[in-house]
């Protein structure tokens, strides 16, 4: 079991900052358009009389097994979306996983280096790859 707790903490801190998890220092700060990022433990489903309507999003994310590329996956992918984006997919060929990673990098704007893209692709293929399709461009970033 290979872990790098510091990276997890770092990425999770970033996730909390970016993920609408709230601003723990301020319970009433108003942002544009009246979005209030209320303190986590004060978030309650608002009642009908209140002008402030608030919900608390559940977190229900699968944890992923150790393996080469897991850290890169957690750092680069999970910062923007749940790992369920992987687990809901059918088993894809390595070529398809590579094109998905490239789409995230080149089209959506994920911060992934070419080297990380290969590592992430290998990891995704290892956990949700279609048997017999891993020969292709393994270990390369090319098409």
């Amino acid at each position, binding site marked *: *079991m290979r*872990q790098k*707790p510091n990276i*997890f903490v770092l990425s*999770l*801190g970033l*996730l*909390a900052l*970016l*993920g*609408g*998890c709230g601003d723990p220092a301020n319970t009433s700060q*108003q942002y544009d*358009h*009246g*979005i*209030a*990022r209320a303190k*986590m433990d004060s*978030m309650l*489903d608002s009642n009908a009389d209140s*002008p*402030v*309507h*608030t*919900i*608390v*999003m*559940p*977190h*229900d*994310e*699968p*944890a*992923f*097994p*150790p393996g080469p590329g897991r850290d890169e996956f*957690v750092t680069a992918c*999970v*910062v*923007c*979306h*749940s790992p*369920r*984006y992987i*687990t*809901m*997919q*059918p*088993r*894809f060929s390595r070529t*398809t996983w590579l094109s*998905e990673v490239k789409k995230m990098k080149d*089209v*959506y*704007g*994920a*911060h992934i280096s070419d080297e990380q893209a290969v590592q992430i692709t290998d990891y995704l293929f290892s*956990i*949700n790859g279609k048997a017999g399709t891993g020969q292709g461009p393994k270990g390369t970033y090319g098409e």
Partner: protein
Amino acid sequence: MNRRGFLQLMGASSVVALTASCNRNGLVTGTLPGTTDLARFPEKTELILLTDRPPQLETPIHYFRQDLTPNEAFFVRWHLEGIPTSVDLRSFRLNVSGHVRQPLQLSVDELRSRFYPISIVAVNQCSGNSRSFFEPRVPGGQWKHGAVGNAKWTGVPLKSILDRAQVKAGAVDVSFNGLDAPPLPSIADFVKALSIDHARDGEVMIAYAMNDQPLPMVNGFPLRLIVPGWYGTYWVKALSDIAVLPQPFSNFWTDKAYRIPTAPNGTESPKELAKDTIPINRFNVRSIFVRPEAEEIVHPGIPNEIEGVAFDSGYGIRRVEVSTDGGANWADARLDPEIGKYSFRRWRTSWTPRTRGQYRLMARATNAVGETQSKAQWNRSGFMWNVIQQVDVKVA
């Protein structure tokens, strides 16, 4: 809640819980497709969980036994992680700006009190509804048939608001932005646009009520753009900013995403992808079985009620034919009275199978201009599925 082979943690959305979740390692052993996870989100009932962050939740088919899909069961689909979780109606404003003489900043109360309200019953359907049925499989939200719903939307015609803002001559497009925000600056904000003529057609509207109730937060509270007959990608949730543009709108979400091949029903070949694509637009015609559901067991010698819903982009459903023998013979189903041209149209028929065995049920809808359903269909994005549905049932 369990997805085979995965460790999951429900509950407090704290960093502590997340850290614990991410530091424990589950083992991914089983195959994932085919399992169904249910999850309960705020203001929602238990729905089929595709993803939790941002949320994508699918409506179980049995809710379509009701003509109006309950708010708590209506499907959910967001693109960006930063979805709004709190809105203060005292400070929330709908901003109308750009190529107008009179920019507006409207509160929800002002929308309710200063404009004449309309209601329309309309289907909202995700562009990728039924994506998991494309073969070969394509990446994306692996919806079955429940990324769709029918609701009564109440609010203000967009035309009334644009007229109040006094659109200047030469307007081309109108863009729509919501409160959701990208998790990284490099990721494009989710903004969509309609042509000025479409925006002013009197039917496109801004809804503050869904089935006579405020919208659930994850369905777009407090305001949602309603684009009857068009795919859900245009129905911008938590709508906060409208901009009238003197030039065509351009961004990632229209130039690169949500595009379809130009062939009918967005079809192309996996071996030869279409070179020309256009933005996805109005619904094609389709029908969805409500009962029996797939794999349901029915009994021989007694009448079994078969029913479903059909819809199109607003021409109106004129005919639904049903086959109980895998497509060899077809008979017309009865249509319930039309609720509205953009609504689900319910169809029913009675079926008395004589003998036990496996049967394949099929349903085929046709609209007022003769559009009907696909026999085969594929595109790289998994959009616009309208293949004639097959439901295999066991008579026992």
